[in-house]
């Protein structure tokens, strides 16, 4: 999340001061993305140092100091909007690791483990969806909530797929101690450590 670029975007409308930027940032993200005022001023100072914003009078300090975007700031914002988000290597997904570990622990019901996580994720998704349901006209909120809901949905679908796969290949389920372990299975878990 780039607070830096969000502030630049808000300054494209007109010069604004710090508290105003904080309020507009929060309302622009459906009031669900809290931002502390110290973070706003620190970011503005860095933007000013980098020549991306300027203040009317550099000598004035305090909450009423107006900031405006520079042409370098506009170029930076345009470039950022069009740059794909940084692609990250596959994360060490804690849920994947928990499942792989559960498969190796005798007496653990992996389907029960999957259901525990499914319940938690569906509960979170309900909370987000109800937030959206209560504010039908808030497009910014709907966009933020949709992003979260689709992420959660992806994880729930993975849980469902894992559930089906483990039913289809029950030998991959809990093993008694000392049972033979496939070399592939070992390598997978080793690779995640």
């Amino acid at each position, binding site marked *: 999340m780039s607070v830096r670029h969000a502030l630049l975007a808000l300054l494209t409308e007109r010069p604004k001061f710090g508290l105003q930027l904080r309020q507009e940032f929060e309302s622009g993200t459906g009031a669900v993305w*809290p931002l502390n005022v110290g973070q706003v001023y620190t970011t503005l100072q860095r933007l000013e140092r980098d020549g991306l914003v300027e203040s009317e009078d550099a000598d004035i300090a305090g909450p009423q100091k107006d900031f405006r975007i520079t042409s370098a700031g506009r170029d930076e914002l345009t470039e950022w909007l069009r740059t794909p988000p940084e692609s990250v290597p596959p994360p060490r997904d804690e849920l994947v690791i928990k499942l792989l570990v559960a498969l190796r622990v005798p007496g653990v019901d992996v389907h029960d483990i999957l259901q525990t996580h499914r319940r938690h*994720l*569906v509960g979170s998704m309900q909370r987000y969806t109800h*937030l959206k*349901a209560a504010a039908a006209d808030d497009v910014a909120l709907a966009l933020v*909530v949709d992003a*979260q809901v689709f992420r959660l949905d992806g994880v729930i679908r993975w849980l469902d797929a894992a559930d089906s796969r483990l039913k289809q290949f029950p030998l991959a389920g809990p093993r008694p101690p000392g049972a033979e372990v496939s070399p592939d299975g070992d390598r997978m878990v080793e690779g995640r450590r």
Partner: protein
Amino acid sequence: MTAALELRRVSKVYGSGATEVHALRGVDLAVYPGELVAIMGPSGCGKSTLLTIAGTLEEPTDGEVLVDGIEVSGMSRNDRARMRRRSIGYVFQDFNLLAGLTAVENAALPLELDGMPAGRAQGLGLRALEELGVAERAGHYPDDLSGGERQRVSIARAIVGDRHLLLADEPTGALDSVNGEAVMRLLRGACQRGVTGLVVTHDAQLASWADRVVFLRDGRMVDQAVPAGAPGAMLAPGAAP
């Protein structure tokens, strides 16, 4: 409070001997007036069987179904059919509207089948279409309506008159995400006005509109979810799930 719908130890077995299939195994479920409950589970888990038994379209092998506190198995066939027409509405993935009837005629159909004069039934049908925001399409035939509009008409038919128990099977399955969301918003709105809703689905996003999500696996209720966590805190920068 009396549950609008209650299933007590409901089981359903199809076939016998080697071909015996246990679709439901001792399901206990109570849904209260104004509540929207989703039954979530994979294909073959028994959720459609549960819905047809809840809607009194099929009888359980064992256990009891109560609608508004009245045990269904104690009713005569005619009483049961009347109760279905007056109290229970169904919404299906593929809408199930009659092509030869207009939107308002489709919405009014359960009332007319129950013996209400056509004029009065269609007046109530129009009121239901108004609630669903499709009153201006009242005179159109299903083929002239979009998918989203057809599903709104089928919801209007499900809640027309005094019908207050709405049973839906994957109601957004044939719709895109925007229309699907609009339909769930309307279902939720109907429940907030007092209708009791039971939706079966495999889709978590659809289920998340419900007040309560019940998980069904291999014919058994295994768990349930209610809204959890504080979204404001979870949406703080750097704290995305």
